[in-house]
């Protein structure tokens, strides 16, 4: 079953994939803590990008408010943990339904009232901003002063409570990226997956063929929101603090979409390649700037901006299709 998911990848591509996966598994033994933290951030954005991709890349619905799912899930799991010592793994059972329900509400309102295209994007921003300001005033979870997770009093590696060093978080997020990749691949091969691609290409034609576009788009938004939720739980426990101005902020939503767009929206390797390119180039730039004595806030984002500009002008399909063709990783259809 797993093997069938990879039958469109050439033997050469499969070998490359195996090498990358082996390197990823060995990484904590090779790199130092700083590089490991960069890898964790990279994988985090690869994961959120993959989740977001289900909506934009598959179904063609541009969401600019994915921070709302990250934020709601993060707050749900963190609050349960702080208040009742509920393990984040159990917390997932609250976080995922909450995020999925929120996605369902936004999706229902938008699709039922035929809000689409740019209007849909703005609607998603509006919901995320509404949540951000709402949580700023939601004093039960700390309001704008933030919510903090206790860090002491746990064993050094307590996987059940997600308390521990960066190596543990690294393997958790790596597993999440692999699972998300497999889910998306399976989704893309399913009947629903083909329906979604049809909707992305031409919604009217899809409806004319008898596809229930409303139902399919709802499924896409619920899957995407639900898949984003574990990322929120992860980031809450990794950072040990939550501020509405960070998790719900529009810059968070924008950063989520950068990786898949730069790698190639709609492709499965795109979010991963994009996150790696984005974070590694940005960190290299930071190191170089620090070496020459420039330490300015905003320089990383300016670089993001120029990279995005370059991609939309020179490679609007993202980098992955070019890489895949160059190294003969996927079979031609």
């Amino acid at each position: 079953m797993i093997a069938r998911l990879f039958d469109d990848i050439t033997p050469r591509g499969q070998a490359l994939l195996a090498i990358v996966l082996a390197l990823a598994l060995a990484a904590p033994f090779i790199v130092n803590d700083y590089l490991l933290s960069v890898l964790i951030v990279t994988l985090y954005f690869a994961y959120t990008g993959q989740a977001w991709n289900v909506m934009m890349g598959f179904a063609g619905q541009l969401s600019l408010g994915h921070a709302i799912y990250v934020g709601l899930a993060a707050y749900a799991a963190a609050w349960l943990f702080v208040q009742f010592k509920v393990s984040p793994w159990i917390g997932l059972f609250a976080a995922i339904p909450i995020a999925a329900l929120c996605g369902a509400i936004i999706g229902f309102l938008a699709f039922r009232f035929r809000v689409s295209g740019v209007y849909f994007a703005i609607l998603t921003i509006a919901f995320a901003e509404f949540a951000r300001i709402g949580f700023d005033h939601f004093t039960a979870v700390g309001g704008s002063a933030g919510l903090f997770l206790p860090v002491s009093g746990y064993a050094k590696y307590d996987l059940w409570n997600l308390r521990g060093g960066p190596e543990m978080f690294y393997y958790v997020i790596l597993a999440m990226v692999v699972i998300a990749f497999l889910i998306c691949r399976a989704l893309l091969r399913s009947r629903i997956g083909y329906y979604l691609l049809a909707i992305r290409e031409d919604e009217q034609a899809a409806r004319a063929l008898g596809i229930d576009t409303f139902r399919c788009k709802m499924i896409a938004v619920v899957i995407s929101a639900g898949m984003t939720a574990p990322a929120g739980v992860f980031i809450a426990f990794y950072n040990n603090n939550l501020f509405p101005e960070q998790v719900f902020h529009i810059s968070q939503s924008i950063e989520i979409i950068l990786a898949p767009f730069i790698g190639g929206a709609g492709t499965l390797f795109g979010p991963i390649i994009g996150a790696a390119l984005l974070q590694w180039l940005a960190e290299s730039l930071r190191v170089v700037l620090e070496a020459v004595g420039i330490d300015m806030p905003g320089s990383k984002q300016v670089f993001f901006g120029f990279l995005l500009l370059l991609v939309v002008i020179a490679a609007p399909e993202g980098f992955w299709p070019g890489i895949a063709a160059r190294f003969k990783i996927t079979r031609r259809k």
Partner: protein
Amino acid sequence: MPLDIYVNVAIGGILTGLVYGLMALGLSVIFGVVRVVNFAHGEMMTIAMYLAIVLFARLGLDPLLMLAPIAVVLFVAGYFLQLRVINRFITRPEHSQFLLLVAIAIIIVNVLLMIFGPDAQSVQTSYSFDSYQIGPIIIDATKLYAGGAAIVVAIALVAFFRYTTIGTAIRACADNYTGAQVVGLDVNRLYALTFGLGAACVGAAGTMLVIIIDVTPALGPAYTLLAFVIVITGGLGSMSGALLGGVLIGLTEAMAGLLFSPSAKSMFAFGILVLVLLFRPQGIVGRRTA
């Protein structure tokens, strides 16, 4: 609370709302003609704001006098941005155009952050604390000047579109792209001109807002969103709708700031946006198109 406080706050909100309206007018004009959604609108406004601040701090030039020069600078910037960059994206899919402008927006916000830092900056003019009193009603001089200037600029723009040949030509492009090309209009230049005018609007609005509020680079995205809220509330592509939407949002924010908490005020603006998108997507004065 006595009634006159409500009246005072409402008048302040309406005057600020007029400036918001002018800002949104720029967005509305660009969308109405070029059919490109300017996701860098608020960021363009922060450029104007920092121009005004630098001119005041270094040369002591009053922002109200700098209104026209800064609007011209933004016009030129907008003109060439459209002519050289955005024109190539006219036929691209929506999300591609959107990403282009998001990239431009990210660059503007963070370049300003690198130059000016994250701290709030403001302009203290000789009339910063002046006010006019009519009976029990007190009106801030800064808001009165800003709101008045916004009306003047908006009327000039409407007159331009209605009574000049170029304005008519631009409206022709908006109505029928192919038709405009057939009768020999240089659509690319007219688009550039329109984008320039939209940028000039937001430049003028930014220059006026400087005397009312403190400026940080982070205002850019916030005002982009606010401009969207306003034009969608008023009706995308409608000039009167933009002004009306601006006044409505300005008034809502002021009243929410008074009745609840100033930091929660934009929640109400977003609440209005959601309601309008769902129940009257064509906006308050917009017409429903099929």
